[in-house]
C-alpha cells in the first residue's frame, strides 16, 4: 500500500471497484463487478429487481461483506480486513429505503449524535450545523419532533440530513423514494437534485428514470449481478446497446 489520501490527485477515483464478487451460498449476487466513481459524479444504478444493484451499493460501505474483489475508497483498500471500516464509513453517507431514523431520539438528536460521539464536535457546533441543514431542506421547525410524528417524505429528508451532518465525501442512496407515497417523492428528489448541484458525489439505486435522466452524470445498468451497460443518461436512454437494457426500458417507460 503506497497510496495514501495525501497523494490523491484529481485523477484518482473516489471509489474504485475491482472484480467485486458477493455470493450467498451458491448464488452469485454480484459477479465480477469493476467500475469507478469520480469525485463529483452522480452515478445512478438501475436494473430489474434481483439484479444485484442494492447489494452492490451496500458492498461499497461494507454493510454487505464482499466475498471477493477489492474496493478502494479515497485510495485505501477498504476490503482489507485490517482497515478500520468505521473510520471510512464516517465519510460515506448512506440513505435507506425505509429511512431508519432512530425513533427514540428527537430529530436534533438523530442529526447530532454521530458527529458528537464520533467526530468529537461540540454539541453547540453540531446543533448549529444540523439546524442550517434542516433549514435547507425546509424542516427547520421540526428539530424537537420525534420521527414518528413526521411523514415519509419528511423522514427521508431528515435521513439525508443525518448523513450530511457527518460531512461525507460520497452519499449512497438505496432506493430512497421506493417506500414513499407518490406525492412525497418530489420533495426528496428535490433535496437530492440540490446536492447534485453542489457537486456532491453520489451513487443512487433508484427506479425514478426521469430523475436519472435529469441528474445522473452516468447510468450503470445491472442484471444478474453484472454490469451490462455503462453510459451517459442521454445515450443510455436513447440508444441502449444491450438487448437486456432495451427490454428493461421498454417495460418501464
Amino acid at each position, binding site marked *: 500500500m503506497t497510496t495514501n489520501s495525501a497523494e490523491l490527485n484529481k485523477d484518482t477515483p473516489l471509489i474504485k471497484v475491482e472484480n467485486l464478487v458477493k455470493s450467498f451460498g451458491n448464488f452469485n449476487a454480484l459477479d465480477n463487478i469493476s467500475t469507478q466513481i469520480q469525485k463529483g459524479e452522480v452515478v445512478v444504478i438501475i436494473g430489474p429487481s434481483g439484479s444485484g444493484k442494492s447489494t452492490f451499493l451496500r458492498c461499497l460501505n461494507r*454493510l454487505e461483506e464482499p466475498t471477493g474483489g477489492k474496493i478502494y475508497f479515497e485510495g485505501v483498500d477498504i476490503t482489507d480486513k485490517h482497515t478500520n471500516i468505521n473510520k471510512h*464509513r464516517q465519510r460515506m453517507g448512506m440513505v435507506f429505503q425505509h429511512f431508519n431514523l432512530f425513533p*427514540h431520539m428527537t430529530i436534533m438528536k438523530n442529526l447530532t449524535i454521530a458527529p458528537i*460521539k464520533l467526530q468529537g464536535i461540540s454539541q453547540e457546533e453540531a446543533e448549529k450545523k444540523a439546524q442550517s441543514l434542516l433549514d435547507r431542506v425546509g424542516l427547520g421547525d421540526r428539530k424537537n419532533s420525534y420521527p414518528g410524528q413526521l411523514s415519509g417524505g419528511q423522514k427521508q429528508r431528515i435521513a439525508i440530513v*443525518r448523513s450530511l451532518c457527518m460531512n461525507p465525501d460520497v452519499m449512497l442512496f438505496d432506493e430512497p423514494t421506493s417506500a414513499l407515497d407518490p406525492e412525497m417523492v418530489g420533495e426528496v428528489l428535490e433535496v437530492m437534485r440540490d446536492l447534485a448541484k453542489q457537486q456532491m458525489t453520489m451513487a443512487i439505486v433508484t427506479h425514478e428514470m426521469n430523475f436519472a435522466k435529469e441528474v445522473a452524470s452516468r447510468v450503470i445498468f445491472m442484471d444478474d449481478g453484472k454490469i451490462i451497460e455503462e453510459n451517459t443518461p442521454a445515450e443510455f436512454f436513447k440508444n441502449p446497446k444491450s438487448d437486456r437494457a432495451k427490454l428493461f426500458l421498454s417495460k418501464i417507460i
Partner: protein
Amino acid sequence: MTNLLLSASFAERFTLNFIKEDRWKYIVDGLGVTLTITIFAVIIGIVLGMLVAIVRSTYEKTGKLWLFDKICRVYLTVIRGTPVVVQLLIIYFIIFGSVKIDKIVVAIIAFGINSGAYVAEIFRAGIMSIDNGQFEAGRSLGFNYAQTMFYIVMPQAFKNVLPALGNELIVLLKETSVSGYIALQDLTKGGDIIRSRTFDAFFPLIAVALIYLTIVMILTKLVELLERRLRNSDH
C-alpha cells in the same frame, strides 16, 4: 385452644399476634430482609441478564463469541431447568458450605443468578425485536458494534421489554419467600414464626399476604409510570 382463640375478640387477637412481646418486629425485620434481597438480586439479575443477552444476540447476528454463547446456553438451561429453592440450597450448603458468609449475601447471589437467566431471555427478545435497519443505520454512520448497541439498539429494546421486566421484578420479590429454607428470617418466615408462637394462623399470614400485595401494587404502578415516560417518543 382453638375455641378459645375463636371466642377471643378481634382486638385481643391483634394484640396477641403483633403487640405482645413486640411480635410486629418479626414482620418489619422480615420485610427489610425481603426488600434487601430483592433489590440487590434485581441489580445482579439485570447486569448479568444484559451481558448474557448481548453475548447471545451478538452470536445470533454475527456468529462471533461462539464459546461465550455456549457458556451462556449452559447457564440458561441449568438455571431455568431447576427450582430456585434447590439452587438456593445448593449455593448455601454446597458452594458456600464451608465458608462463613452472611445468609443474606447467599440469598442475594442465588436469586440474582436465578433472575439473570430470565432477564437475559427478556433482553434478548427485546434486542431481536429491533429492526435490523436500525443497526445498519448506526453502522453506516460509523458507529462500531458496541456503540450501535449502546446508543441505538439497547435503549429501544429496553423500552419494548419494560412490561416483561416489571413482571420479572414482581416474580422475584415473591420468590424470595423461600429464603426461609436457609433459615433466613424474611417476611414470610417472620409471619410463620408468629404463627408458631401464637397458634393463630389468620392474623400473621393474612398480614404477610397483604404486605406482598401492597408492594406488588406499588411496583406495578411505578413500572407503568416509567413506561408512560419512555413512550413519549411514540406518537
